[in-house]
């Protein structure tokens, strides 16, 4: 005789059942004692798995109009019942046993599938991250120059409100003259602007809009130094860096959101770090290609190095963030790379030299510009 602790459910009993001690012998299942005994013949009983985690065993039978069930929760009792059940119940016990084994197998398969899926997604993500630059370049290659120019115009229209452009002075003429020499034969139609801003900076907008801060022109000792910066900016335009960065960032976000669902804060950080890495690589490329462009246009390439040295020494460059958190490589590193690249290059023949610019008059023109400034 088996003794089974469990809970009894059925018509007239509390919804959450009552705790009982049931006894199972070769003939019948008996619950309770004395007058209050409830019993069912073995042939009436059916066994199945039940409960929240399907680990309980339900023994149910019909009594009059209602259905009663005994739920056995204790794992030891469940095992005993399955292995030592009377012969007439053994068939059902084995069926339950098979079901449990099969479910365990399904569960393992499902878990393996999930793990595999996540691993594959992660590997794909890593591969794509590693190849992000060529892929972004390939996608950006499909964007017509016309669209890029429209995008640039829109961005410039937005930026223009915060800029004070000096578009009719000697400085702008000088920038234009140098710029045009640097961009001979380009597929872009460049626009050259000078903005009143004392900081040493310049930026390029996709489609060929280049803006130089007046502070940079004041700091440049001659035209070749300014040409170094312009060559760098021109390379940003020619290499379509902004467009590629846009493609890369958008693509990464799409990818992340398909792989991990919600991008979340971590995803944002990863995206930004990835973007900064892309930015540093782009800067290096613009430096190196810019140097070649400078030489090809007949400018003194040392000018680029001299200006970078000035950038390094300029105030505000003191508390630079650590390299991996920065959008640009550290300036000393950039100078060293350029110097290395410049080594062994033959000097540009006199005949190919860029035409001279009256630099002192450009500087005088900027200094004479005394219109009210917001800075």
């Amino acid at each position, binding site marked *: 005789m088996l003794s089974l602790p469990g809970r009894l459910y059925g018509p007239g009993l509390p919804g959450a059942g009552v705790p009982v001690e049931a006894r199972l012998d070769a003939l019948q299942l008996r619950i309770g004692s004395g007058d209050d005994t409830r019993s069912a013949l073995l042939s009436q009983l059916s066994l199945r798995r*039940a409960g929240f985690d399907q680990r309980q065993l339900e023994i149910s039978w019909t009594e009059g109009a209602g259905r009663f069930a005994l739920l056995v929760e204790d794992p030891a009792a469940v095992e005993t019942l399955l292995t030592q059940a009377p012969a007439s119940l053994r068939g059902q016990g084995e069926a339950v046993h098979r079901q449990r084994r099969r479910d365990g197998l399904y569960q393992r398969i499902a878990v393996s599938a999930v793990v595999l899926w996540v691993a594959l997604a992660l590997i794909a993500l890593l591969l794509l991250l590693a190849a992000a630059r060529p892929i972004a370049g390939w996608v950006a290659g499909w964007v017509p120059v016309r669209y890029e120019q429209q995008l640039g115009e829109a961005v410039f229209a937005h930026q223009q409100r915060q800029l004070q452009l000096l578009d009719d002075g000697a400085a702008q003429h000088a920038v234009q003259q140098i710029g045009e020499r640097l961009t001979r034969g380009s597929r872009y139609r460049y626009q050259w602007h000078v903005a009143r801003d004392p900081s040493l900076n310049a930026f390029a907008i996709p489609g060929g809009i280049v803006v130089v801060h007046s502070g940079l022109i004041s700091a440049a000792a001659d035209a070749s130094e300014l040409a170094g910066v312009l060559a760098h900016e021109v390379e940003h335009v020619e290499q379509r860096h902004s467009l590629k960065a846009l493609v890369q960032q958008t693509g990464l976000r799409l990818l992340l959101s398909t792989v991990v669902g919600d991008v979340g804060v971590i995803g944002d950080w990863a995206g930004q770090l990835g*973007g900064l890495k892309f930015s540093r690589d782009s800067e290096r490329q613009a430096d190196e290609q810019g140097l070649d462009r400078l030489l090809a246009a007949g400018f003194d390439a040392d000018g680029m190095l001299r200006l970078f040295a000035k950038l390094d020494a300029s105030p505000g460059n003191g508390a630079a963030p650590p390299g991996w958190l920065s959008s640009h490589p550290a300036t000393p590193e950039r100078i060293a790379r350029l110097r290395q690249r410049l080594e062994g290059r033959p000097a540009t023949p006199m005949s190919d030299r860029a035409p001279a610019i009256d630099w002192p008059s450009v500087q005088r023109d900027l200094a004479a510009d005394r219109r009210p400034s917001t800075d």
Partner: protein
Amino acid sequence: MAMDIIDYKIFGNDTQFVEVELDPGEAAVGEAGAMMYMEDGIAMDTVFGDGSSQQRGFWGKLVGAGKRLVTGESLFTTVFSNQGNGKRKLAFAAPYPGTLIPVHLPDVGGTLICQKDSFLCAAKGVSLGIEFQRKLGVGLFGGEGFVMQRLEGDGLAFIHAGGTLYERDLQPGEILRVDTGCIVALTRSVSYDIQYVGGLKSALFSGEGLFFAVLQGPGKVWLQSLPLSRMANRIVMAAPAIGGRSSEQGSLLGGVAAGGLLGGILGDDE
């Protein structure tokens, strides 16, 4: 550990709170932030973990706290004990409109499995654990996720859920199909599974989602008429200030607009 027997009274209809009366020396545990008021003489103590495991040592507490974190509760529980001489009262309030129900754990077999986040307060000694959903399909599509909360002990516990709470007894073998997300609590004896709604048209246009939750008796289940997420969804959809639509998807282009388009010669990282 002997349970503290507490007397209580529930106030309000749609936004309820429960006032609990503690005899001298009795204590109750509450979800962090749920306390509404307490009378003089009741001392508050914040414990790491669920407050039932004072003797288990540091690691036991850490595991208890970790489990609470998984179920979306705070790492800490607050224990309120009556250190005065007479009976003292304190109250716990529900965090959103809904219904509060007392569950006397011995009446339901000593264990109640409930939705994450539905625990409000209990007599000291009730332990709060987690119950993992072992069925992959139910975890993914059953509406309650892979982790549910398990209340164990022989005292009184109060759980809270949105809208109206409906308590139902399921006879042996009786099946109830429930909209996913509406399950608040069930006893261990109830089977919980999912079922495809059937038919492509129903799956797409019935508004019930792809799956029903299927509950099979015997046992007791508690259902909520209005899950908080559903109400939050409607509120967001009706709020023009945040676009009048669910704002879960951030803009794909966000953060790479104008700023990222300028390739300067110097970084502007500051």
